[in-house]
């Protein structure tokens, strides 16, 4: 029987290989001066972000295989992991990131890897759209039988068509938010796909000075044991 080759998965693997090599090459410059070290760290960081995006795209492709197990997961440690990963990037781009946890329910029904991807893409999106010297906010709070993770940016207003798609809970395809590099809307597309798989609701709230993107996750019944 012929096995159908998934062109996207093959392309993803082809893309990942040179990115991983670039990252290793950058890392091999050890013992460089402070100025070069900064450039090296940026090269590593750019490659890592690109690798992650390729990995996320591969995961989107594999969602229908149902390989991602849903289980009770603690939402705050995942937020902590993502912010730890991205904090240097915010600093490097002269952005601030504030974190506020007010949720009483700790556990949600999700897939750890996919939830990490949703928050990562929301935060990367916020970093990209916030103006220089501004801050983004990551908030986790209770909302009825759900836990809401919100990422607020202080950038340009979200176009209404993207806002409508987000609130419909499903971004059909990457939609460009602004005519500049990195504005393909790929991050939001990935976040919405992952959320949809987890039966979580995504949405966006437009503000006059930016946008809040959120994902509402089902609370885990196991939380009542604590």
């Amino acid at each position, binding site marked *: 029987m012929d096995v159908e080759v998934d062109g996207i998965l093959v392309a993803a693997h082809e893309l*990942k*290989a040179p990115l*991983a*090599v670039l*990252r*290793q090459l950058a*890392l*091999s410059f050890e013992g460089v001066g402070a100025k070069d070290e900064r450039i090296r760290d940026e090269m590593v960081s750019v490659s*890592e972000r690109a690798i*992650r995006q390729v990995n996320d795209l591969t995961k989107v492709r594999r969602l229908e295989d149902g390989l991602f197990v849903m289980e009770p997961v603690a939402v705050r440690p995942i937020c902590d992991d993502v912010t730890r990963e991205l904090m240097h990037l915010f600093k490097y781009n002269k952005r601030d990131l504030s974190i506020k946890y007010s949720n009483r329910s700790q556990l949600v029904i999700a897939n750890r890897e996919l939830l990490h991807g949703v928050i990562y893409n929301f935060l990367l999106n916020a970093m990209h759209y916030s103006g220089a010297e501004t801050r983004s906010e990551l908030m986790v709070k209770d909302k009825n039988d759900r836990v809401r993770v919100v990422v607020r940016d202080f950038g340009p207003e979200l176009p209404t068509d993207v806002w409508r798609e987000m609130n419909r809970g499903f971004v059909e395809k990457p939609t460009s938010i602004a005519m500049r590099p990195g504005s393909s809307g790929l991050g939001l597309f990935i976040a919405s796909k992952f959320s949809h798989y987890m039966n979580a609701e995504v949405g966006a709230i437009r503000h006059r000075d930016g946008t809040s993107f959120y994902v509402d996750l089902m609370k885990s019944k196991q939380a009542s044991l604590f």
Partner: protein
Amino acid sequence: MIFVIDDDEIMAECIANAAGDAKVFSNAIEAMNEIVKGNIPKLIFLDILLDGPDGFTFLNEMISYDDTAKIPVVIVTSLDLSDKDLSVYGVVKVLSKDDMTPKDIRALVKYYAK
């Protein structure tokens, strides 16, 4: 002596530079031929997707001979093998090409080959 088996020349060079005293092979057959000549490595860094026989074929060859069955092998791959137990192949560690660092390689060399 450490063996690095990877068909990506630059990646292999990066690993070999971090490992120190290393010999690079671009496919499994070259590495097996070197072993047959009597050059038994103390540690092997092995990619899985190779030209010709893949990494698992190489591992099967390795564990089938008494002189190579106990050589520690570090898999270096971009595949997700996190849920696989490969210890039966003598695999002591799986490094992901996505996030490994020269420090990780040096630590493994220090532990298994010094």
